[in-house]
């Protein structure tokens, strides 16, 4: 029983990282109807750049909560900038092109980041060690079940960011503009909404969350290379589809389910199948309920 609970806890931790990444997929899909395949690589950049930030600031050698908060803020800001840059350079010129061109461009951006990152002058292909920004300690112990401070932190930060995003989108003026743009560009522009600017903000927000996920991931998997974003990115995409693409609560729920499914598969079946379970879930969702758990059924307008 304790083992099972411990597994559930692990699953929740990884699930909440997937959830943070999935939020970016779902938000960008909401405004552009684009699966931004470069999103997983932005997540990788969040983790990778944090290694450098930790080195430059010296925070990597003196573990503290403040150091972690500082790195988290730097990674989020850097990724927001990168997200805005990708949108501006790669996607905006294609605003009136077909969705397929946009999708292929997204794959191109992803390949570019992954492969340029492996160049010796950039990050190099060998994994880099993620600094231990906080020392892992047991935080709560119930019998044999222990929650470490890192686990609590990862889950807490993810929940807080998801909650903040939900509030932002539902309750603020910019959130209203995002939802208006997600509904229809033309109608939104007739309200005086600067559509391209709102799309830029959406990319910045989603990418900042991916940056935060990168830091949280680094705390658990302390070896980062330029391809580290690939699998978590794809799994987060599955999470977004499972939750119902376009839905923010859906992305969170989807992320948690993927994390749990993966951890339980590794724990009770075989860790060989760990990475495959997400794809099995994707196939089942697409067959049984393509609109996802919390997604709205989209009726194509004729």
């Amino acid at each position: 029983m304790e083992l099972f609970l411990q597994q559930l806890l692990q699953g929740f931790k990884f699930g909440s990282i997937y959830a943070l990444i999935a939020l970016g997929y779902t938000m960008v899909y909401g405004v552009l109807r684009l699966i931004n395949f470069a999103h997983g690589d932005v997540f990788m950049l969040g983790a990778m750049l944090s290694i450098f930030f930790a080195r430059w600031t010296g925070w990597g050698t003196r573990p503290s909560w403040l150091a972690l908060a500082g790195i988290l803020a730097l990674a989020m800001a850097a990724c927001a900038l990168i997200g805005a840059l990708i949108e501006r350079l790669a996607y905006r010129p294609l605003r009136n092109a077909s969705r397929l061109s946009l999708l292929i461009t997204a794959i191109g951006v992803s390949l570019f980041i992954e492969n340029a990152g492996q160049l010796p002058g950039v990050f190099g292909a060998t994994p880099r060690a993620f600094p231990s920004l906080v020392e892992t300690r047991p935080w709560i112990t119930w019998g044999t079940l222990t929650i470490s401070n890192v686990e609590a932190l990862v889950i807490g930060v993810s929940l807080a960011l998801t909650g903040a995003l939900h509030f932002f989108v539902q309750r603020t003026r910019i959130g209203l503009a995002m939802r208006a743009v997600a509904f229809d560009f033309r109608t939104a522009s007739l309200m005086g909404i600067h559509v391209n600017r709102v799309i830029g903000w959406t990319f910045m927000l989603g990418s900042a969350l991916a940056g935060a996920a990168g830091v949280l991931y680094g705390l658990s998997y302390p070896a980062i290379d330029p391809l580290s974003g690939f699998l978590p990115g794809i799994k987060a995409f599955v999470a977004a589809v499972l939750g119902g693409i376009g839905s923010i609560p859906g992305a969170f729920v989807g992320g948690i389910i993927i994390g749990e499914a993966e951890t339980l598969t590794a724990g009770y079946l075989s860790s060989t199948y760990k990475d495959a379970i997400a794809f099995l879930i994707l196939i089942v969702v697409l067959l049984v309920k393509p609109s996802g758990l919390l997604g709205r059924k989209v009726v194509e307008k004729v």
Partner: protein
Amino acid sequence: MLSVENVSVHYGAIHALKGVSLQVHAGEIVALIGANGTGKSSLLRAISGLTPPSEGAIVFQGTHAIHRLPPHEIVGLGIAHVPEGRAIFANFTVEENLMAGAYLRHDRLEIAEDLEWIFGIFPRLKERRRQSAATLSGGEQQMLAISRALMGRPRLLLLDEPSLGLAPIIVQSIFKTIRQINAQGATILLVEQNAHMALHAAARGYVIQTGQIVMEGPSAELLASKRVRQFYLGET
């Protein structure tokens, strides 16, 4: 207030507007009538920036040449466009739709006052303010679309076929509201297939046919003209 000068619009090879000129003066209701597919909506889309004209100029308030501006900047100058088919945000509540109309405004207190003013004109919207806009009837959606445009406090309101698809009794009440809004200061350019209703509400009118203005004048004159009576009022 608004001066459309020799405007042409092309959609690929289709020449939807062929050198249209039209004036709207402050405080007026002007009707633009014509059959389906004659370019009425194209003209409104050219004014609001959704389909920029390929030729000609559009000047707002004497000084602003707006025909090269993107839609959101044109809205910022005080032109609100209620598009054909209403295009309300179906995934928003009624109140959120109205707040979207006030997107460019920052005067919270006055926005709240305007909301009450709108609810005074359309009590149905107040009853349903927290309801999803998709649950409204066609007439209520039209009221919401007009109200949403009014929340931006426009100087000029462009209305595209507000009577489309609505029962006659609803049409009556929509037009009553249009006159009421005009009496409170809004200038209105009204596009309609329902020539009878439109010309009774408007002081002046234009008749458009295959992308060109073929007649213009005071509404009473147009209503009396043989051509309008034959083609648009169904008399023989």
